[in-house]
């Protein structure tokens, strides 16, 4: 966090990142001596689905986890550069707990808590001090995650009894319950079968009306189906970011074209 020293002034004003919900500026990241992200700068627009694609180990998941400061939980890591949300620096003068509340995350493997469906959804809201109507919040979030109809009669049953796809949508509902404005998804469909995947993608498309969604995926068809913009990463660098249609049909970089046409990766 050495770059862009601004005389210790408070976080940037809103005007600094007009149009961008999330702005990544000159981001570098290390796991120990391993330099996994190199000078990444990227703007992500509000109420769009942005897909991060690239071969394994290209840094796309690491970047995702830099956005909500999850990487800080791993010992021996280092970050330089800035992450701004609505123009506010998420690292300097920001509390990681607040950052993670604002920027929700859904993980690769469905990982509900060993509690009931109801408790899974409400827990995050409770720990953040939610004092409103719990039943109402749970229903609203489950509806947004397109799970309500399937579980409304067994809210107090164990979450582990749900199928993988249902568990993943429960994890989305749980994330929405803390009222984030950005939702990060790290290969959310990789453990799901095609039908559950289709359902999940449908849910994601519905969510973008209210949320800014960033999704890491290995599946280029998936990126094509659900994202408005796509960013292609290779070896820790951002190679190209553009409207999804543009990137998939007329990529401006040779490396991008090679990857999306299946010549490597």
């Amino acid at each position, binding site marked *: 966090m050495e770059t862009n020293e601004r005389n210790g002034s408070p976080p940037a004003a809103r005007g600094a990142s007009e149009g961008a919900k999330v702005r990544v500026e000159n981001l570098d990241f290390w796991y120990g001596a391993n330099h996994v992200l190199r000078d990444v700068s990227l703007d992500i627009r509000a109420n769009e689905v942005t897909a991060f694609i690239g071969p394994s180990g290209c840094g796309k998941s690491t970047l995702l986890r830099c956005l909500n400061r999850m990487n800080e939980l791993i010992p*021996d890591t280092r970050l330089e550069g800035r992450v701004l949300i609505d123009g506010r620096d998420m690292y300097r003068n920001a509390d990681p707990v607040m950052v*993670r509340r604002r920027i929700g*995350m859904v*993980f690769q493997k469905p*990982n509900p*808590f060993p509690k009931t469906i109801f408790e899974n959804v409400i827990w995050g809201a409770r*720990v953040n001090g939610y004092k409103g109507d719990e039943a109402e919040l749970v229903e609203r979030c489950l509806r947004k995650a397109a799970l309500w109809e399937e579980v409304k009669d067994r809210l107090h049953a164990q979450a582990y009894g749900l199928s993988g796809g249902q568990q993943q949508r429960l*994890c989305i509902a749980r994330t929405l319950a803390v009222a984030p404005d950005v939702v990060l998804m790290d290969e959310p469909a990789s453990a799901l079968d095609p039908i559950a995947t289709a359902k999940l993608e449908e849910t994601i498309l519905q969510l973008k009306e209210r949320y800014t969604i960033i999704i890491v995926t290995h599946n280029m068809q998936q990126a094509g189906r659900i994202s408005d913009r796509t960013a292609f990463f290779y070896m820790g660098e951002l190679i190209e970011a553009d409207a999804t249609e543009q990137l998939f049909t007329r990529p401006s970089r040779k490396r991008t074209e090679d990857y999306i046409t299946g010549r490597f990766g």
Partner: protein
Amino acid sequence: MTASQQYNERLERRRRKGLVFSVLLFLATTSGLVVLVTLIVDVVVQGAQWLDWEFLTRFPSRIPENAGIKSAIVGSLWMILLTAAISVPIGVASALYLEEYAPRGWLLKIIQININNLAGIPSVVYGILGLTLFVRFFALGRSLLAGALTMALLILPIIVISAQEALRAIPEGIRESAFALGATRRQVVWSHLLPMSAPSIMTGVILALSRAIGETAPLIMIGALTFIAFLPTSALDPFTVLPIQIFNWTARPQADFQGLAAAGIIILMVVLFLMNLSAILLRNYFEKYRAR
């Protein structure tokens, strides 16, 4: 000889070797069991005639017919409760710190190695430590509290290690998703980590306490008395415990006292059995609670 014949012949030999191996494993298992059964039978035969209500409700006496084990039973119960009350909170808290809070590094490694070593130190050494530290330096005297503190030190490493293992067994995804919801570390610990690890921590605690209830050496070192014809009324009273009473009786020449010792051993085994049983019940309860 064709290749197939060769294989068949080898198959025979492989089967024979397999049979020998399984017989050896069976013998190993039964040898331990046979010794245990012999011991139990021998103790019961010797001690059964001394076992009656009087034995449980009388204080020790120089006359075998009048001797009972009341003060030792009560002493052992006090001892276990006090030891648990001291060692469980400290042990679980240490494990939480080491697993969830402490920054990774050489200091943590040194602490970890030390804890592992402490678990292997002979109990008599803890007795000497207890004598110097609690009995003399803190002037607690030869009291229940001094004994329980010593015992707590003795089993602390076992509790810490088993609690650490229980915490490590929790999938990383639980922590990650809880943090990602904007929870603080304390909230993650109280809502998820402790309830999820409670059944295994409980198992470790009970195993440790079972060891403590049978320990004699450290209490002899700190001078737990054997002839106690009254019940402790506070943690600062002198005391005796079952293994010390048993040890004392076996050291006497008269045959009657050997019988009393055997009866005492039966009582000790019953107490141990009840402890383990309650451990299993408690653990099942917590598992059910977690599953709800």
